[in-house]
């Protein structure tokens, strides 16, 4: 697809903002529905990591794993969610990247996420790379890659929710 045929950047921004809003409002069913059936949420362990099959990742979740995580987060006896995690996403610097060769549109953006749980406020920052597949008037996420700037650092707390 030639860049000339792409919708305006504003359309992608709105998609990303909605994605973030669904996470912040714990509306995970609608969030998972943004993904293609074979969509993947990937958070590499290393910066520039290309290979998720031969090396470990912080998250590497298809819809089955996403569903398991979400069911736990909602479970009345998920002790690690007592008290629950709250998040606020800020997304900026949204820009189009060259395609991934599969016809998907690749959109990159920067994020900061404030996460609060049990009196501790912490910040995540990094880059999103979204591989978006056209679906009717909108898109489905084929891949949401989340590169934390501290991906290979020491993680102070368990990452219970999607970033």
């Amino acid at each position: 697809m030639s860049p000339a045929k792409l919708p305006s950047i504003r359309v992608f921004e709105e998609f990303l903002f909605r994605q973030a809003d669904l996470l912040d409002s714990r509306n995970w069913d609608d969030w998972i529905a943004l993904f293609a059936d074979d969509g993947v949420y990937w958070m590499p362990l290393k910066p520039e990591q290309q290979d998720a099959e031969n090396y470990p990742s912080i998250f590497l979740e298809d819809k089955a794993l996403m569903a398991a995580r979400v069911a736990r987060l909602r479970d009345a006896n998920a002790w690690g969610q007592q008290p629950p995690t709250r998040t606020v996403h800020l997304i900026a610097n949204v820009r189009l990247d060259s395609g991934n060769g599969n016809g998907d549109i690749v959109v990159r953006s920067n994020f900061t996420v404030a996460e609060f749980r049990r009196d501790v406020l912490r910040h995540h920052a990094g880059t999103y790379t979204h591989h978006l597949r056209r679906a009717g008037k909108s898109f489905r996420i084929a891949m949401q890659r989340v590169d934390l700037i501290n991906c290979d650092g020491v993680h102070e707390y368990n990452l219970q929710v999607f970033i």
Partner: protein
Amino acid sequence: MSMKGVSIGSLVQPDRVHRSLYVDPELFERELDQIFGRAWLYVGHESQVPNPGDYITTQLARQPVIMVRHTDGAIRVLHNRCSHHGSMIAGDRCGHVASVFTCMYHGWTFRTDGSLVGVPVPEDYEGTGFDVRNPRNGLGSVARVHNYRGFVFASLAAEGPEFTQFAGGALLGFDNMIDRAPDGVEVAGDCFRVIQHSNWKIFLENMFDNVHPRIVHQSSARGAKTAQQRFPAGAANHISLETFRLLALDQSFMQRLEIENYPWGHSNMSGFVSPRGQDAEWLAYEAVLRERHGEERAEQILSRNFHHTMIYPSAVLQPSFQQLRIVKPIAVDRTQIDIWLFRLKGAPKIVFRKALSYANGANSPSNMVSADDFESYYRVHQGLAGPGSDWVILSRQMGRDVVENGTVRTRVGSSEASQRNQFQAWRRYMIDEDGDAR
């Protein structure tokens, strides 16, 4: 000798331990000296330093160290501390030096066996009594190093049992993992590093606690079930989900697990989920193993399923899924765990895929199982910080375990034999023959 009027020996009783073991900062400092300062601690794997000059850095108790392959091919464990003014020599977690380490502060240089090569202005030292030309004035080395089939352990103490005698039965688990590899094992990428906001002993006890899973992990088990129902095809690819589901079965399932406990606090526990499959790829792997080891031996290796193997106090191995968790106590209420994944060289891809699913799903910083484990460790630590009640009860199946030649074998999985055994080792490290604090 006593601490605040209480003898340390009396804090550990056969069936209970005093809460101060978990929360007293002074005891924590003593543990760093007496336990982590003397035990054999895991340093790294030889595959991390394949060539001369390759190194990694880590910390043993309070001591920063460099594990480096010297020009003679042997692995050295050096103090990461310049012999001049103390600066750490290596500042990265891993790297390579072509010939020498150069200190970034005043430029002293060292060979990869630690020996001193030179200093920038040697005349400064003439007649001072310090000989900068003596190679022995270089980097210190840890007192003892043992390379066990590629796994490098070190002890900061010159005295003590030698490694194989120390590790004893826990080597069965390490052997089992290594023997599963047709062509040896290697580290797969970097490790996960996570912090627990709790005392290090709470984690090690939990590794052998078979009553907590159905309580702590019920939400993960239900989550896994939901996923298996909604996305059966996708879920079948994830052995992590199957593991989570099994965590909350009836207690009789966990009662079948066997735990063997050895001197110095080590344990082996049998597994409840096996990587073995019936698909062609997995069977091809078993065929390769039979080719290497012979029919009988291969079956022995594959059917011996360890869930956890612990070399107290630093290493917990999961032999069937090739993961190794390393305990690094940072403070009395702060514990770092480094989690390494290994690849069985020469095995078909399916073997690694299962290990990777287990690593990403059950050991990564995002894993949902440890979200609830860490919560329980935190709550235990916070509860024990209160001075209101003193004792932690460890008497499940007390007196019913089978003792044979220093090995304690449980009759049922819920026994707290491992926890009792860990604290007997703790006591042995912390007090001398007369019952006095070391």
